[in-house]
């Protein structure tokens, strides 16, 4: 996925000269011969890609326009002058740095706590193979599967009772449990196939369970744990229903909640709304660029049985 834009341009030129069988132009000689149909299909694939990216591009160019520029030139024109007014307007209105910090704080703590809980659970279930483990794993899986609406009102009442309603810690606790439920399921099957020789060697050296867990199992499974950590972070970042319900005061809101809350307001002109969407997508875009390798590994790892 690390391809840069430059690699597409020769292919695009190729596509325009469809059917050109000039051998000196082909980059890899052992590749099968390209037919006209191949080029048609390539063009279709590229058109689909452009359609998918188009909304992002529209948001990007229109966030840097002044409202007057937008109404004069329409959405497709490049901005006449780069105008930061819309972005600054939205940035200040929602106090964006605070919302960013809330999201980072919540997602960061959730991902750490949830990985720790997943490791402890999976140690008992995958390595320890406690009795009835299959049912316990099904229970954890269920916790991850049920709709959050079915927990929403009781949780709302409980957290109101203990005084954590409208407090970021309520979200941290809830999502630690929800994410670790998935982590327990995944990690239990990973630990179920942990190399036995390593465990035997560690036991022969006289290490106790606690030491074996933290000095042997956790370091060896670190790649899986880092995938989980990143996924928990992004999933928590993207959560909406429970943060929307629980974090009602402005100072506690997360980025998605704060941006959505402003959508209905008539005060938001067209370019400010565009800027709000831009600011909402930039953080996740940055994670994606930083972690893309881990992410692609993780997305596919979860699906293969």
């Amino acid at each position, binding site marked *: 996925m690390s391809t840069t834009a430059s690699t597409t341009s020769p292919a695009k030129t190729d596509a325009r000269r469809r059917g050109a069988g000039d051998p000196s132009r082909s980059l890899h000689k052992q590749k099968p011969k390209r037919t006209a149909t191949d080029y048609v299909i390539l063009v279709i694939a590229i058109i689909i890609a452009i359609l998918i990216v188009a909304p992002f591009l529209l948001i990007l160019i229109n966030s840097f326009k002044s409202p007057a520029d937008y109404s004069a030139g329409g959405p497709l024109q490049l901005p006449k002058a780069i105008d930061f007014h819309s972005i600054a307007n939205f940035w200040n209105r929602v106090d964006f740095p605070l919302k960013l910090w809330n999201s980072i704080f919540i997602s960061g703590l959730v991902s750490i706590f949830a990985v720790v809980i997943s490791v402890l659970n999976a140690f008992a279930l995958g390595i320890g193979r406690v009795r009835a483990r299959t049912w316990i794993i099904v229970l954890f899986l269920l916790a991850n599967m049920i709709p959050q*609406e*079915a927990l929403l009102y009781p949780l709302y009442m409980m957290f109101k009772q203990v005084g954590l309603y409208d407090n970021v810690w309520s979200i941290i606790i809830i999502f630690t449990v929800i994410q670790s439920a998935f982590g327990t399921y995944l990690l239990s099957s990973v630990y179920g196939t942990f190399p036995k020789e390593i465990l035997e060697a560690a036991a022969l050296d006289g290490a106790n369970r606690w030491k074996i867990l933290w000095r042997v199992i956790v370091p060896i499974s670190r790649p899986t744990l880092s995938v989980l950590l990143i996924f928990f972070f992004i999933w928590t970042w993207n959560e909406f229903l429970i943060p929307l319900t629980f974090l009602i005061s402005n100072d506690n809101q997360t980025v998605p909640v704060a941006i959505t809350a402003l959508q209905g307001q008539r005060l938001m002109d067209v370019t400010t709304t565009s800027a709000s969407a831009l600011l909402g997508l930039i953080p996740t875009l940055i994670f994606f660029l930083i972690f893309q390798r881990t992410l692609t590994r993780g997305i596919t790892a979860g699906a293969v049985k």
Partner: protein
Amino acid sequence: MTTLSAQRPPVRRPKRRNDSMLPYSGRGGFWWYLVPGFALLTVIILVPLGWNVYLSFTSYRGILPPIWIGGDNWTRLFSDQVFWTSFLNSIAMIIAMVVAPTLLGLVLAAMLFDLVGRKFGGKLASFLRATYYLPQILPVVIAAIVIGWILRPSDGALNNILNAIGLGSLSHNWLGSPDTALASIMVVMVWVQLGYPVVIFMAALQRVDPELYEAAELDGANWFQRFRAITVSIIRPEIFVVTLTCTIAALKVFGPIYALTRGGPGTSTIVPSYYSYSEFFQTQQVGYGATIATALTVIIVIVSILFILAQNRAEKAERSN
């Protein structure tokens, strides 16, 4: 991911004590490691879930204590036109989030892997795959807001473009009129979901032996025949996983509805999760909201069980062949 039961050594019955993977230790003390996780699971998931089921048998407005009314909420649910509308809209969401992305994803993944990857280079194929995946990385509400911005009624990009190319008569209040609101949300969801099956299926396709393809090609099978006979049968486990996870996600969908239409206009885009949310916090019919949420949970659990049974049956059928 093999399930744990498959890992069990066959000679496990007689010696229960030494069942853990750690030698020289039984499995007794391992329970301690489950305590924090299990306590949290009980408090945050199991108790609220049971409580919610209880609330579905009560009349509760959020202030005075709940009053037991037996199955009244449930009889109301079955004759509630709005609930059935929300359920029908869920099926529309399944079409937009499961059926369309899976079918399109299969074709696109095969196209990228088989054709673009082989004939134009793997780098171009991965670049296109990353592009298709882009909407998946956004919080789904932000994705909805991006498209919502384009669909703004008076000054949105889509209407603006239609006017500019002389098709002004087609411009429309896309999200604000009952005839197009649901279809608009479906388009948003196809856009959001498409990348997920493409990425999963492309990874799965790496298991396909190219020689199988070449053999089929020599036998005169055309692309579509090869696709059906080889590709689809080899990546069937992934197709199951994708359809199951996406169906659950489609039944749960809330954010885009909240951000774009709040179930409106009227009830034309209402879905069960939004319906229960509005019963909880807008009309304060907590008992009835809990009933809708419980019904949704039951539906999701049934759907998952059916899927897993179907998958097991398909796997068995394959093994016996």
